[in-house]
């Protein structure tokens, strides 16, 4: 690590402690807000990379994609709202990079009405431009259709029946890639990236009834409930929260927003723990002093 990085982060910690002292002295919570802001912004601007330990669930997903024959058809879903972008978007970007690198044909869709389709368009077009992929040949965005259970089941018999056109209104028949994808039978792998319960439907409807393997990326809050599915083999791999996304970025060899965000996340988290512990130590010391004063 370079010396100036150590100095910069050392100063950051000193500033954090100073702000904490001010917060305690004045009782003004804005010092704390400022400290939190500092600990988030600083690592995003001045990146400090911690070594990432890859968890088995992430490795499982990576290996499953890696083992796909080149030019397989893969369905990637954008089942998340704009509010959880920090955790979910890096997952989409990292998996998309991996899929494109393996020359997979990527089909995207969403079960989120507002925001979902535009996030899918933005992310896929950006990564496609970066990797030199062509719309309609290498990837297609299906967009959103209401009533997700009906959509998930209906795509088992005919994707075209559910989505007559793609997100921008082009009939699927006019997109060369779609001539080889009719239903789940033509899809080798599904990656469902979601911030809600939809993943359990991908498992219980699609994985269970059509047999297509499903991997997932979910927010840190919902990750624990899906470990059981990974253990039971119903999910072929899982990315949990920003940490999972950072791990995948490391595996793909293209560190991006999650890797940069992870440092900030750990730092703020540790700062909050430190502030709680320090607050209590001071509180107990004051209490003891007051107690001693009272007896004297």
């Amino acid at each position: 690590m370079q010396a100036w990085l150590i100095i910069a982060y050392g100063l950051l910690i000193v500033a954090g402690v100073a702000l904490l002292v001010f917060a305690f002295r004045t009782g003004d919570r804005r010092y704390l807000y400022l400290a939190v802001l500092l600990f988030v912004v600083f690592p995003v601007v001045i990146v400090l990379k911690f070594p990432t330990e890859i968890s088995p669930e992430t490795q499982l997903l990576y290996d499953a994609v890696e083992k796909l024959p080149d030019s397989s058809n893969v369905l990637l879903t954008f089942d998340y709202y704009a509010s959880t972008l920090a955790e979910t978007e890096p997952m989409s970007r990292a998996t998309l990079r991996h899929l494109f690198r393996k020359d997979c044909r990527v089909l995207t869709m969403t079960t989120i009405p507002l925001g979902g389709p535009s996030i899918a368009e933005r992310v896929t077009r950006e990564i496609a431009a970066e990797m030199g992929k062509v719309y309609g040949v290498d990837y297609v965005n299906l967009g959103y259709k209401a009533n997700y259970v009906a959509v998930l089941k209906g795509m088992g018999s005919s994707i075209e029946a559910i989505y007559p056109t793609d997100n921008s209104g082009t009939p699927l028949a006019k997109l060369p890639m779609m001539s080889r994808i009719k239903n789940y039978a033509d899809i080798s792998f599904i990656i469902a990236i979601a911030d809600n319960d939809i993943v359990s439907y991908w498992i219980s409807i699609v994985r269970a009834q059509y047999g297509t393997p499903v991997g997932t990326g979910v927010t840190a809050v919902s990750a624990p409930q899906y470990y059981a599915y990974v253990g039971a083999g119903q999910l072929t791999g899982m990315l949990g929260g920003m940490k999972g996304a950072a791990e995948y970025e490391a595996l793909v060899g293209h560190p991006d927003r999650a890797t940069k965000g992870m440092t900030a996340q750990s730092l703020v988290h540790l700062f909050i723990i430190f502030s709680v512990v320090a607050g209590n130590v001071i509180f107990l010391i004051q209490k003891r002093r007051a107690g001693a004063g009272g007896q004297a």
Partner: protein
Amino acid sequence: MSAIEIFQIWIAAFFTLALFSFLYRDNPCYRLAEHVFAGLSAGYEVGLIWNSVIIQQMIDPMFTGGEWWLVFPGLLGVLMFARFTRDYHWVSRIPLAFVMGTTAGIFLLSELHGKVLPQVQSTMRSVNPSEGIGGVVLSLLIIVGVISTLIYFYFSKEHKGVLGGVAKLGIWFIMVSFGAHFGYTVMARISLLIGRVQFLIYDWGDTFTRIFS
């Protein structure tokens, strides 16, 4: 990046910063953002209800589906406006009673059947030593936790004696649970903030380089 995209990012960045500024203190930027936000979301609600309820669930089925009886819920809705009259004010209670009664009917069973039965069922865990020490401890923790929490909420007696003891145990369990839940949520909230900061630094920041180059 086109001019319109830059404009979109600037709009989003302005409102993002305006809302964040509330953390320092109330100010005209926050007030403007707050009022625009309130107006847009009320308008959003109108657009949503108009298209997905009035058009899709009432007008379309009535005129193209022949479901003429949908005029009745429409009339029921109109009764809501009786509150603006002096003598027939009470009539507006009819649609309210209809909605409340329906809610009550749904919840009476969904709560007892959908929550009480399965939660009670999954609390009946084996404490047989064959489950292993870890299994027995976990089962006991859950059984005692559920029962003492329920007892904590018991209204019919003063919390004294044995009841008081169990209720006290209940409050300890509750505190452990709340601490755990709070601690567990912190990380998710931080990542939300990181998302906004990354937007400001990467996306908004990027527009500066585009503008000046």
